[in-house]
């Protein structure tokens, strides 16, 4: 129900075709106080694509993810995963929270955190077997952290912590990957490693959606973009939607220095 201001048509999945989209949002409004964090947002994410959710600080980027996951309760709106209410499809989703959202002083080793990704399979009482450990180690290897399996999580650098979070999500073996600021405060090597893993996920046909704040890397990392500032500004392929006109609409007067977005401006 948001406003058709920007040109955002011509996608693989049309906004009306909800069942084809891995994740579709209709009329989502979430409010934490007397101002909405997101207002009346529609979104139709594309299957097998890498989408960046982009917008200024406080634009409601993380709120979108948290609403999908049922972490915050919307005032109104519908969230559909493969055409069905998200609450019943949540097993298809893996989530990488913001690194700063947890207490890294928690008494756990790296491998313990990755094994959390297998919790659905392990249930309450099933013992962790060799096969589970092997899978967890394989996920760690995919992010280049296999040597750290026995390390206490508090001893990791920020980039290493982020990789452990990604490994945990890989262990979930999900269709849809939701990541909240995966590149915030990480070193360049980690950033490259994470983007490699995300691209390989996409190439396997999975859907990757990441909240992202670095405009300069949007074009290089992602193929689709969803621009938001409380309301939806635009969505589509990077070429279609990541225009300086749309960026102005999203950022108002606060547009940061913007390289490489001027193709359509």
């Amino acid at each position, binding site marked *: 129900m948001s406003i058709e201001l920007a040109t955002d048509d011509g996608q693989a999945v049309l906004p009306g075709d909800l069942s084809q989209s891995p994740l579709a949002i209709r009329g989502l409004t979430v409010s934490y106080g007397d101002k909405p964090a997101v207002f009346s947002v529609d979104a139709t994410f594309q299957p097998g694509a890498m989408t960046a959710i982009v917008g200024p600080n406080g634009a409601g980027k993380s709120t979108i993810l948290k609403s999908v996951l049922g972490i915050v309760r919307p005032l109104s709106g519908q969230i559909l995963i493969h055409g069905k209410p998200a609450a019943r499809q949540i*097993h298809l989703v893996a989530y990488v929270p913001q690194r700063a959202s947890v207490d890294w002083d928690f008494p756990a080793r790296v491998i*313990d955190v990755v094994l*959390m990704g297998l919790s659905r399979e392990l249930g309450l009482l099933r013992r962790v077997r060799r096969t589970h450990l092997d899978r967890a180690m394989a996920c760690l290897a995919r992010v280049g952290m296999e040597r750290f399996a026995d390390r206490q999580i508090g001893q990791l650098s920020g980039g290493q912590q982020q990789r452990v979070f990604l490994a945990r999500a890989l262990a979930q073996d999900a269709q849809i990957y939701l990541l909240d600021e995966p590149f915030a405060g990480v070193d360049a090597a980690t950033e490259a490693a994470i983007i490699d893993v995300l691209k390989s996920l996409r190439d396997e046909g999975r859907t990757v959606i990441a909240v992202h704040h670095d405009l300069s890397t949007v074009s290089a990392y992602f193929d689709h973009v969803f621009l938001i500032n409380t309301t939806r500004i635009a969505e589509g392929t990077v070429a279609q939607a990541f225009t300086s006109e749309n960026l102005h609409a999203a950022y108002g007067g606060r547009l940061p220095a913007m390289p490489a977005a001027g193709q359509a401006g």
Partner: protein
Amino acid sequence: MNGAEFVALSLPPILIGVFAAIACAVPGNFLLLRRQALIGDAISHVALPGIVVAFLITGAVTTWPMMLGAAGAAIIAVVLIELIRRLGRIEVGAAMGVVFTTMFTAGVLLLEQSDTSSVHLDVEHALYGNLESLIWLDATGWTSLADPAALAGLPPELPRMAVVALLVGLLTLLLWRPLTISTFDEGFARAAGLPVTAIGLLLVIMAAVAAVAAFDAVGSIIVIAMFICPPAAARMMTNRLDHQMGWSIGFATVSALSGYVLAGYGPLWLGFDNSISAAGMIAVMSGLILAIAARFGPCRARVAGS
């Protein structure tokens, strides 16, 4: 003191103290990691009104109504705290302070206004229990442990506390994974489909049941020492949760044993003929262990750079 005296006078209170300490320390580990250590404080205070109300309704001090009363009071307290925190936008510590002090006060008032002279229920008892009175008169020596007739005369607190400690242990084992995940990363836990709110509430109820069972033996405020001190000391010994749990159970046991022994025999060794409060001494010993761990524990300091 010979074997007969020991079995009759000391064994039951020691066992009750140990079981009580373990039953509180086990959920205490998770409360500590969730930054909810003071929920234990709140719960042990509101157990009093819960028990008093249960007593006023049933007219007797019996196990299950008391347990239900205290668990119910704990749930009411937690709900009220959340209500004040969310709807009133009041910081959680202050919300807790409002709720548990008021409920405790109401319990005190109810207790003083009702006729409880016929039963073993008064405010001082509620505050610091009476571990020493839980004796086994039917015991004549170690052989009584195999004598069904004598066993029937065990203080009822002993089997009650043992069952509660066992239940708490089993439930913690059963819920180990969801508890760990939702404690470490609530957002991820929700996304992984775990009923995070229910898990949190279950932990509180578990703590409440442990608190009320232990309440009889060691009183409401010293229960807090068992919720917090052994897990806090254990946290400084290791960086692994399962090991921390083990350490905390060990520390709880040592506190209970040494506290009881020091309270019971310490004054005699010094030439006095009266013993001192065992419950208080247990709390002091747990504090001593915490102090040592805080000073020398291998994992006492926060990790830098996280």
